[in-house]
């Protein structure tokens, strides 16, 4: 590291004793953090550990209850985003803050226009963007509309926005969640470029592999507190995971080889056209056998959601779908119910919108889709709420839902526990086929371990499982076979032992690899 010899260097960011409470919840407790200039500093922690709150305080979204922020050695007040921008802090949010119908240029100048008229600002930004693109490998068409760009490009626009505002400190919140491996590699090259030009980067992520690959220093947060800050070279993924969760965690899944049986799901030439007339599924064919997990890999938005929708009964399609040899009517009206009757259980991608009613209580959520079951009925008119509550309590116990209280609103559980409620509802039916989308999105490491074990156990009990996930690690560790989707088609199929991230990444980007 250059400059280290010149005695004490001034930290780019120094936080001292930052605390922040939301009502009774202490999101940040007495946090101190020092980030040196020209480094990439990772911050890891489970959901709800307080990472995002801390960064929001740094970016002026929240005001800390106590504590001090020093930027480049000077005590700094950051009451709003404008102050953060003035202090040279730029933020790339997990959910992009871009105006979709605007062009890249318009998004870049928004809020930092040169004057009342747009033309001069746009001209200046055009030049600045060109320079930034050359300096940092940040090429984006300045006149493209955001809504026409892929997620990787949108992220570059966010980085460009920050750099155009003269940011010296760049905070990235879970930047690789939506990227293909190739895009993620490109992002890391950009970040290394930025670091070599003296920028300071804070990288918030839950992917330990990324932390190990790119950061210089890493801080671990747990339950609102900073539990450790270590040099990346002197730690390991296992140690970090333990620090995050507070106990030993199995990062690698132990599973027996699959013993696939008869074909449970047979899909032939499935086609779906959306409301805009765009063909989202372009002739998908696949089979899933009893006792195996077929993983569908792919970048979000390549037809996986539509595949789940058709199988789950929320979308109409052409083609054939057979369950245990029985064809399913793809144009039926009471499709969801018919699917369940045929033995399909569905854990939707977006549990908060499709899997649960957030305002309803846990026991009410526990019977959605199965409320016509005799077990839920007291007589022809009334439901047996007592029995349902008891059943819910018992399932919550078995699926380790915390707190195991059937009378809590779905909203008040954490993401992982919400997912466990959905899983309990679907798995407890002993389905012939479980279709599951993004089972661990927004779920803590500890809960991920549990959910993965449950899926493997269901497989070993003889169910067929179709797993859709954008997390390649998850696909690789759970699947017995992997199919890659791109642009509404299956690009090819692999066995997990004969492939790797690079091979899959190429197929996810639409490059057909070696013949399947």
């Amino acid at each position, binding site marked *: 590291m250059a400059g280290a010899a010149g005695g004490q260097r001034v930290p780019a960011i120094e936080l001292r004793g930052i605390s922040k409470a939301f009502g009774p919840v202490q999101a940040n407790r007495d946090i101190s953090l020092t980030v040196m200039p020209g480094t990439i500093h990772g911050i890891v922690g489970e959901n709800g550990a307080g990472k995002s709150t801390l960064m929001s305080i740094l970016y002026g979204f929240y005001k800390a209850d106590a504590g001090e922020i020093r930027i480049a050695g000077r005590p700094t007040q950051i009451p709003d985003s404008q102050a953060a921008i003035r202090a040279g802090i730029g933020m790339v949010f997990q959910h992009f803050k871009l105006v*979709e*119908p*605007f062009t890249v240029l318009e998004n870049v100048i928004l809020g930092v226009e040169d004057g009342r008229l747009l033309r001069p600002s746009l001209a200046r930004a055009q030049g600045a963007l060109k320079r930034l693109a050359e300096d940092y490998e940040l090429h984006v068409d300045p006149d493209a509309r955001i809504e026409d760009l892929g997620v990787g490009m949108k992220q570059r626009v966010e980085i460009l926005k920050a750099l155009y505002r003269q940011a010296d400190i760049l905070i990235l919140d879970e930047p690789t969640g939506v990227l293909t491996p190739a895009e993620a590699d490109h992002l890391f090259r950009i970040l290394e470029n930025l670091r070599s030009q003296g920028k300071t980067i804070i990288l918030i992520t839950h992917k330990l592999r990324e932390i190990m690959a790119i950061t210089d220093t890493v801080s671990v947060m747990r339950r609102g507190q900073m539990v450790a800050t270590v040099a990346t070279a002197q730690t390991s993924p296992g140690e970090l995971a333990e620090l995050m969760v507070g106990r030993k965690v199995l990062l690698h899944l132990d599973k027996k080889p699959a013993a696939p049986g008869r074909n449970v799901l047979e899909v032939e030439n499935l086609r779906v056209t959306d409301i805009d007339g765009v063909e989202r599924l372009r002739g998908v064919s696949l089979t899933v056998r009893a006792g195996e997990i077929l993983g569908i890999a792919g970048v979000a938005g390549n037809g996986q959601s539509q595949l789940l929708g058709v199988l789950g009964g929320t979308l109409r399609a052409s083609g054939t779908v057979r369950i245990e040899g029985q064809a399913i009517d793809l144009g039926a009206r009471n499709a969801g119910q018919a699917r369940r009757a045929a033995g399909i259980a569905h854990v939707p991608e977006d549990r908060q919108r499709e899997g649960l009613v957030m305002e309803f209580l846990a026991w009410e959520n526990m019977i959605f889709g199965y409320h016509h079951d005799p077990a839920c009925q007291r007589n022809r008119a009334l439901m047996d709420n007592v029995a349902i509550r008891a059943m819910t309590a018992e399932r919550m116990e078995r699926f380790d839902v915390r707190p195991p209280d059937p009378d809590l609103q779905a909203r008040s559980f954490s993401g992982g526990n919400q997912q466990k409620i959905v899983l309990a509802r679907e798995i407890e039916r002993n389905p012939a086929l479980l279709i599951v989308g993004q089972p661990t999105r927004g779920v803590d490491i500890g809960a991920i371990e549990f959910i993965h074990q449950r899926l493997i156990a269901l497989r070993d009990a003889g169910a067929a499982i179709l797993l859709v996930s954008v997390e390649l690690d998850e696909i690789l560790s759970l699947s017995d076979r992997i199919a890659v989707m791109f642009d509404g088609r299956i690009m090819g199929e692999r066995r997990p032992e004969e492939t790797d991230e690079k091979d899959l990444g190429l197929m996810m980007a639409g490059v057909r690899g070696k013949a399947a």
Partner: protein
Amino acid sequence: MDFATALQILDSTVRLATPLLLACLAGLFSERAGIFDIGLEGKMLASAFFSAAVAAVTGSVWLGLGAGIAASLVMAAIHGAASISFRGNQLISGVAINFLAAGLTVVIAQTWFSQGGRTPSLIGAARFEPITLPLAETLHPVPILGPIYHELISGHTLPVYLAFALVPLSWWVLNRTRFGLRLRAVGENPEALDTAGVSVAATRYAAVAICGVLCGIAGAYLATALQAGFVKDMTAGRGFIALAALIFAKWRPWQAMGATLLFGFLQAIALRYQNIDLGGVVLPVQVMDALPYVLTVVILAGFVGRAIPPRAGGAPYMKER
């Protein structure tokens, strides 16, 4: 139909389209900033009454116009406070404003003038007078173009010219200025504006204020130019027709002009041909009068293709958590 009749109908189209166009542009500014406004009707009505009342008392149409705009701005401020500062439901706030205006105007009119909820008829300087454009008389004898210039282009009141001049101006403001960029951004994704360090609330209040001013002019035009005084419920659903036109126009100024001219044309036809004889079957006057409203329903039912409203429309802005 001869040439002169056609000109008369088109002339009346322009006059009837004017309040619709002003209200439509008012709604455009508000809704492009993400504040739905079904209170256009109420704001116009409030302005119609106060402009007529002040014009009647002072004898000055300009003071009347000022009073109308002020009344409409007060209504806009209520809507703004409810939907921006207090994060209330914008539809309910709009409905409340419509009721408030419908009730208050008649009650105050009765208290002040005791003429059954009307204002006295306006005469002379208490009304906007038609403006004869230069050379209108000289050019009148020129075939075709002369009468078009004389009848159609010339001879309207000031608010008519203002309304049509506002169309390119609105386009320019929205698409070529910093204010327009921010206004459109706040209607599509207020978070983007907030993280860029610009106040979401201030931008939205500005848009709501513009909406108030334009509705004020629309209402004043109704009572002091199109008619000669205020009568109960004189807006007659124009605020809602303007909303339909706004959707029809997909929230764009030039298209808004086209849409409001279409509605104005239907109203002009209805005024001109009270009963239409279709060889045996006589369409009664009510059918013609209902046409603009029927078209409104047809448009709102989505027969005009997909109209995508501003993405953040109708939703109060709250920071995460």
